[in-house]
């Protein structure tokens, strides 16, 4: 009796995974190229960067905010890391004298980009401007910074060590996928196992109550946006590594894809609800849908329509689930 109830509840809590599995099976039947190792690995690699952004952005959504800057931070980050890690032999180097070890280059990049997170967080927490506005502003600034820095030229010829992060494999698993898994694991751990996670849940659910309960709302919010920017900067490094160059036009609309994935994964925009397993499923669902439509040759414009429908549909379902409870 008890076991049966649990199974039912388990199904209800994991509807999104059921949908994903169903989608996966349908895709495998619809196109025989879908279930090849090359295809699956390519889907995973493509979605990993969006995924890393999503496990950052979901925190902002959870706290009843939003972050629109990650796409632009990806661009800036890819430019900075590329400029610091061009091959020494390359004659047209952007910064001729510079030859830093790759880890140092990455560190510098991440630190610079994370400053945008501090700015976002501070604006939202202390000046109380809506997150939408604050991060829209930093989005424009970050993208412009990337363009000014590079004069909008791509920065090619990166060191192999850096490219390995985006193109290499460890034990036949793409490195980039491993990094995504790490980020998802860390995010999930923070969400359920740390004080910070509980704080953000409470802030998203009722920030006034959280404050009265002794939570430092501002500090926590700043950290939320710092984490999101950190994720985005790592995403930018990986994008440069994967594509082999830094580009100020990179990462366009990535934040929207990440927001979509978090949303489809059940992160509530009214705050206070988020599960890492849901967000991962959301990323995979959107990735598989994109991929299968490409494989069966559907017009790219229709792909956008389908994506839009999925996002709206998932939120409607979510709302209905909440309503039915009453």
């Amino acid at each position, binding site marked *: 009796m008890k076991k049966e109830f649990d199974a039912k509840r388990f199904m209800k809590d994991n509807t999104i995974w059921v949908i994903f599995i169903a989608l996966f099976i349908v895709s495998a039947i619809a196109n025989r190229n879908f279930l090849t190792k090359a295809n699956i690995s390519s889907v995973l690699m493509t979605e990993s960067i969006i995924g890393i952004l999503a496990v950052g952005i979901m925190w902002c959504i959870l706290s009843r905010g939003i972050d629109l800057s990650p796409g632009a931070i990806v661009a800036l980050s890819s430019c900075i890391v590329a400029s610091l890690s061009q091959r020494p032999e390359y004659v047209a180097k952007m910064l001729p004298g510079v030859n830093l070890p790759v880890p140092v280059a990455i560190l510098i990049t991440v630190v610079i980009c994370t400053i945008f997170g501090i700015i976002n967080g501070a604006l939202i927490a202390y000046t109380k401007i809506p997150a939408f506005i604050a991060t829209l502003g930093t989005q424009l600034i970050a993208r412009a910074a990337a363009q000014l820095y590079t004069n909008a030229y791509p920065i090619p010829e990166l060191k192999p060590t850096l490219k390995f992060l985006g193109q290499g494999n460890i034990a036949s698993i793409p490195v980039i996928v491993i990094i995504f898994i790490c980020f998802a694991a860390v995010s999930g751990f923070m969400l359920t*196992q740390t004080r910070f996670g509980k704080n953000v849940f409470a802030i998203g659910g009722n920030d006034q109550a959280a404050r*009265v309960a002794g*939570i430092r709302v501002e500090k926590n919010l700043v950290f939320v946006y710092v984490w999101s920017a950190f994720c985005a900067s790592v995403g930018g490094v990986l994008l440069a590594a994967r594509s082999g160059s830094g580009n100020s036009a990179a990462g366009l609309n990535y934040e929207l894809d990440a927001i979509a994935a978090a949303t489809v994964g059940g992160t509530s925009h009214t705050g206070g609800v988020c599960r890492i397993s849901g967000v991962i499923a959301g990323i995979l669902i959107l990735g598989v849908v994109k991929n299968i439509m490409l494989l069966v040759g559907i017009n790219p414009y229709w792909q956008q329509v389908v994506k839009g429908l999925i996002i709206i549909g998932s939120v409607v379902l979510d709302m209905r689930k909440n309503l039915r409870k009453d």
Partner: protein
Amino acid sequence: MSEYILEMTGINKEFPGVKALQDVQFNLKPGEVHALMGENGAGKSTLMKCLIGIYHRNSGTIIYDGQEIDYGTTSEALNNGLSMIHQELSPVPERTVTENVWLGRQPMKNKLMVDHRKMREDTVKLFEQLNVVINPDEKMKYLTVSQMQMVEIAKAVSYNSKIVIMDEPTSSLTESEVSHLFDIIRMLKEQNVGVIYISHKMEEIFQICDRVTVMRDGQYVSTDNVSDITMDQLITKMVGRELTDLFPKTECEIGEVVLEVKDLKAGRMVKNVSFDLRRGEILGFAGLVGAGRTETMEAIFGLRKIESGSIKYKGQEIHIKCPDDAIKLGIDYLTEDRRAKGIVGIRNIRDNTVLSCLSRYGTPLNQARMRADTQEYIDKLSTKTPSQEEEIKNLSGGNQQKVLLGRVLLTGPDVLIVDEPTRGIDVGAKSEIHALLSQLAGEGKAVIMISSEMPEIMGMSDRLVVMHEGDVTGIIDRSEFSQELIMKFATGVTE
């Protein structure tokens, strides 16, 4: 036609895991005030929500004005003459009082445009008729809880309903406002309106109600004429046992001063407040609405900016910047505004209970300990809930209050400030909470209790600080307590 305007019979309602109502009956005559009583979680609010279409009953019949009804939405109920003042207010904070009153039914100039002039005039007229003095153009968020409650009452009356349901309307009103409400109720009676009155305050039932129906654990117990029943009988029916002492105050040794507040000034509600608090003492704070009691405590707790004055804690001057500082020092505060500043509605009971002491559980969080601590306070306060995993918004109002009380007790404060601690709490649980506060004082803790309920504050306090418009007008020792003296100070007469 029957003498009843409303007859509910055999009502059943189930939520996942909870049978909230089992075979409940209730009826109402036109022009009568019918009290609905029972412990927290007895199902009173749920029964009323079934009536006005917020919930759907699983079975049972409701006959209203000679017809069987089954409303699907509240607007349907409102249009048919059933209005309700909800236990948990839900104002639109950014809009004006006027707009809140006419929300969703604004008078129109034509098909397209709202008639703002008429809307405002109607509000003024309504407030005049009911003797409510609140500026109709004020934004809702600037009102005090009790003013919001008065707006809500006015709003319910403005529907010209045949039945007005009042779910704990007085839980945040002071005595004078309560008598104001009673005038309004008498006016409704004269107009032959039936009033369903839910309250945990015994005296009110005997003052204003004609009949009383008691519920316990989702079941119907009895209906009596108020004139045929004594208070003790009523309490026994509600809690299913006899209750000996409503204010189990134990005299305990009063120790040294722990908190010394001097010339505190914080905004226009706290002008000049000085008092000291000793170990083992329950210090009551009395006053009318706008006296600045809550604001004083919020200033001490770091929720309001202090402009001048000093606070000494255990002999040292302290500067609290935010609640976190206060809690770390051992000062904790239970808010009066449960819904806005207390609960995190969509999170479960456990998360709500441990919220103030998360640092205690380490990283990764020790889930087992969190569960044990939560259970301890569920048991201690006899909170009624199917499980710890229940979202707190699904609990009855009184049980939400118990969870919040558990949250502050869990931090183990040396100075506990409770603001209307028994608001919306049933008689049985109330005396348990009073006993708990007494016990804390006995352990050498110091308690500050704000309450607008005279019997409670007089029954529980060792000393009383009375405030009026931001100033302390008098401090009274227990031996000199009298309602007259308190009212004298509360209305601004100083010593």
